[in-house]
Structures are given as C-alpha cells and as structure tokens.
C-alpha cells in the first residue's frame, strides 16, 4: 500500500529508499522533489545541454526507482549516492558524444535558488551553506588547482588526459588535485567547527 504524500514528506531519504524499492510512487515523487533540482543542475553542468541533461536525469532517477532497494547506507548518504549515479551517467553521455568538449569554468558567481531563508529546511540550509563554503573554497583555490579538479570531476578526464591537455607532468596534475581537494576539505571542516 503506497504511503500518503504527507507521510512520505516527513521521512528521511534513508527511510524513503525501502519504500521506493517496494515501488511506491509517492515516496519516489518526494525523493525527486528533494533532489531532482540538484541532479538536473549537475547533469546540465556536465553535459552542457538541457535536452541531454533531461535524458541523464531521467535515466538516473529511473535507475534509482529500479534499484532503490539496493542502496547501501554504509556507502554514504542517499543524496551522494544519487549524485554519483547522475555524474556517472552524465560523463557517459559526454564521452559518447564525439567532439564535444565540456564547459571549463565554475559558475562561481551564479546564485542558488532564490528563496527566503525561512522557507529552507534545516537540511537544505546546511546544503546551501556547504555549497557556499565549497564555492568560497574554490574561489580561493589557485586556478591551476580548480582547473584540474573541474576537468576530472565535471569533464570526466583522467589525470593523464589532463596532463596532456595542460602540458604538465602527471605528478603535477595529481599534486594539484590533492592540494585542491585538501583545501576544500579544510574549508568544510572549518565550517563544521
């Protein structure tokens, strides 16, 4: 018996997943409403086209609908799991499109959803804070570090491809990735302190 929407809305993602595994459309609808925006944004950020981003998002959510029961909470949050599915599918789509280069800049100045702070749930507010911290961290990263992170994460390039692209040694690329991620991690840790 499907749960009512109001009840599903009160459940945490981890509690929604078993319901989605039992083919509950209301639970799925709530899950999509929570995460569809970030999923589509990530897909669009990677593939750079709205139609392709729609396809990627649709495939990812249908895949979650069909495999929700296999979510393993030991591997992290449902949202991270979902975003990794979107990212993998978007990179697949990108790679299958010959000759299409990914976008190469962070939208540092772009603004997240414009909603009054009081409308945000605590969890959403934390995500916005995280987004803001990551943007802040990315903004302070030397361009060479943010570029390799971007090429790898949003472009799906391997470190050797990036090294060739930028004309720098492999070790340099790896070092920049490490320094960049450590800096972002440090900023997040400060935010949590």
């Amino acid at each position, binding site marked *: 018996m499907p749960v009512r929407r109001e009840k599903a809305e009160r459940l945490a993602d981890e509690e929604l997943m078993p319901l989605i595994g039992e083919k509950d459309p209301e639970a799925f609808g709530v899950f999509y409403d929570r995460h569809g925006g970030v999923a589509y944004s*990530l897909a669009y950020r990677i593939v750079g086209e709205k139609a392709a981003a729609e396809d990627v998002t649709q495939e990812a959510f249908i895949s979650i609908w069909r495999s929700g029961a296999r979510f393993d909470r030991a591997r992290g949050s449902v949202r991270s799991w979902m975003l990794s599915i979107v990212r993998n599918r978007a990179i697949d789509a990108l790679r299958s499109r010959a000759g299409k280069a990914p976008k190469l800049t962070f939208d540092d100045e772009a603004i*997240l*959803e414009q909603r009054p702070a009081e409308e945000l749930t605590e969890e959403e507010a934390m995500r916005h804070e995280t987004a803001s911290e990551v943007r802040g961290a990315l903004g302070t990263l030397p361009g060479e570090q943010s570029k390799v992170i971007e090429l790898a994460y949003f472009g799906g390039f*391997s470190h050797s491809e990036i090294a060739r692209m930028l004309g720098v040694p492999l070790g340099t690329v790896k070092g920049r990735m490490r320094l960049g*991620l450590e800096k972002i991690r440090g900023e997040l840790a400060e935010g949590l302190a």
Partner: protein
Amino acid sequence: MNDENRDHERWSEDAAAYMLGALEPDETVALERHLEGCERCREQIRWLAPAVQALPEAVARVEPPGELRARLLAEVREDARRARAEAAAGGGERRRAPAWLRRLGGGSLGLRPIAGLAALALVVVALAGYEIGTEDGGSSGGEVTSTVVAGHPPGVTARVIREGDGATLHLADVRQVPGDRVLEAWVARGKKITPVRALFVPDRQGRASTTIADMRGVDTVMVTVEPKGGTRAPTSTPIVTVPIPQ
C-alpha cells in the same frame, strides 16, 4: 623523508585522483589493492570524501523542466501499477524463472547461430555455469529481469530490464576498461547484429548501464569492449551475452 613517508606521499596523491575518478583503470586497481591493507590511506580517502561529495552541491542551480517530473512520475506509476497487477495475479509469490531460463540449466539454449559472432557468442552462452535468476522478486514493473552470472571474464553480471519496446541493460562487476576503450552493446535478431547507439563505461564500482531503444525481435544482447567512439561491428569477444526470451 623516509621511504615509508615517500610511498605514502605517492599514494596520497593517487587517492585524490581516485576520489575524482581520474585514475587510469590499472592505477585504480593498484590503489584499491593498497587500500585493503593500509588504514592510513583509507583514512585519507574517508577524510577527502566530503570534499568530492560537496562538488555537485556547488553547481549553479538550473530548474528542471516540469515535464521531466511529469514524465518520470507517469513512468513510475505505470511501473507500480503493473507490479501490483502482477502481484495480484500471481498471489505475490516469488516467481519462478521463466521456462526458457529453466531450460538453460539443461544446457539446451535454443539460440540461433549468429554469423560472424557465432563462435564467440556461443562460447559464452554455452557456459554450463550460466546461472539464471531473478532480481528482487524476479520482476521490475512486471517485466522479466535476467541475471547472467557468467561472461568473459567470469563474474560479470548482466540484467536486461524490459520496458515496453525498449530495455535497460545493467552490468555489474565489470573490469575497468582502458581510457581509449568503451563498452558497446549489441543486439542480435537472428543472424543480424546491430549496435546499440549509446557507448558506455563502467564506474569505479564496476557498474555500467545503457538503454536499448528497440528490443522488438531481439534474441540476444551482447556487450564488447571497443575503441573509443565505438565500431560498426564487434571487434572483440563479448564480455557478456544475454539470451532474451521471445
């Protein structure tokens, strides 16, 4: 810096590239092997994970089109309706594998030879080790789900989930492919082999999936490793071959 620290400096840099999905397949395997016995590097990965997980959160928001939500919900509602109808018809019992799958246990596959690929496909199909099962109760939206625990190399599993005229092919435990290679899916209708347009690659967990738009008349689905960009005809032995019931 002593040797141990120097070694860890190297793994530490690999760890960051690994987290970003930027290592080459052989390096990924090497690092994962190292991680099995190195708590220090595992800790490094755990520590870095939130930084990578935060990257998508920083992406500028773009509102998804409303039609996308409508389409998705229509699809899952129809899927759920079929599942309920099937449960009502079958008394909710765990379904047995279809007859054609059960026959596989006897070694009679009833597959037609496929020109040019007959040897390759049949080598895989004829493996006595094929174990055909059902996933999560044996159905997804009332459609047959096949699991093939076999393939080349052994251990690759494939599920073909039928959705109307199309299907989604899910692979698991696929070895990483070199950077200049991709996975390409093929469908066979009798003697005719057709490539499935979308090329795909396994993720770090060895999972890969693609959609097949037209499954009408398809009796076998195969996946091969091909040069980047794909090919018009298979150039390697299928890593997995899935017979499709007619």
